[in-house]
């Protein structure tokens, strides 16, 4: 997830995120928004604060996931 803010008005989006069985969930965005996300989806990992700093960690996370 890149630069989106958990919003209780969008249950069609955040309920599936909360219930996700994905093997890994990574988040790029602000610390406060990440804390809100953690309340919904406790397995989320914070990679970076901005899109600019987060793209490379996202790519390396995905590449690592593919290798394993």
């Amino acid at each position, binding site marked *: *997830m*890149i630069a989106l803010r958990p919003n209780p*008005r969008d249950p069609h989006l955040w309920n599936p995120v909360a219930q996700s069985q994905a093997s890994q969930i990574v988040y790029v965005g602000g610390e406060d928004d990440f804390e809100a996300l953690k309340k919904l989806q406790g397995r989320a990992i914070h990679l970076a604060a901005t*899109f600019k700093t987060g793209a490379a960690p996202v790519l390396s996370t995905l590449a690592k996931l593919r290798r394993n």
Partner: protein
Amino acid sequence: MNNRDIVILFGAGASYGPGHVLPQAPPLGVNLYDALAAQYPKDWGSESHLGKMWASQLRDDFERTMYEEVLPKVSSLPLLEWHRRVAEFFATYRVDGSGQDMYSLLLSGLRTTGLVGQVTFGSLNYDCLLEQAMLGLQLTTDYTLKALASQGSVPVAKIHGSCNFIAGDLSWKRAFIITNPNAAIECPLNALSLQNLEGLLRQKFAAYEQAFFPVLSITLQTSPQ
């Protein structure tokens, strides 16, 4: 069975912060009302009906105000007319073609690592910066999500609509739209080309006999899935 088991979901901050966007980065929700008011004073400005009635509330919480205050009190026609300006507004934003915006860099990285065929993208953004970046890399966008197994196109779910999504001709529903607030209509949807999108939208919205409106969920509490 498809092998697209990676989902990358973009929010408003992604289009605010990719860099290399013209004429400038699109506003975040907190600044959206003022940006619309400046660009379209007749429809969104302080002297417009919307502005006179709800400007301060729209500044405070755009989505809540549209849903709780505006939607129940106006017929659907003016609401859809205001949506037209929102679509035109977001259609003005474009990546600069240098390939240095973050959408392009991320897509390039996914392609280099052989992962682009395994990704389904989702975006909450009305702008088409992601799709423009894809176009710049000769990647084809699949909005229908029907070809998830195909390697030839990349699925993109525009979860809250998109500035290039246009409902089919609704002129046959004109009376219903004029008289009803919160009119619900099920109709076909077309995705306009990103080439000259602003011009295409103006042309569609200027049609008199036909009635075309954008597909944007800026007022719905429960958005389309």
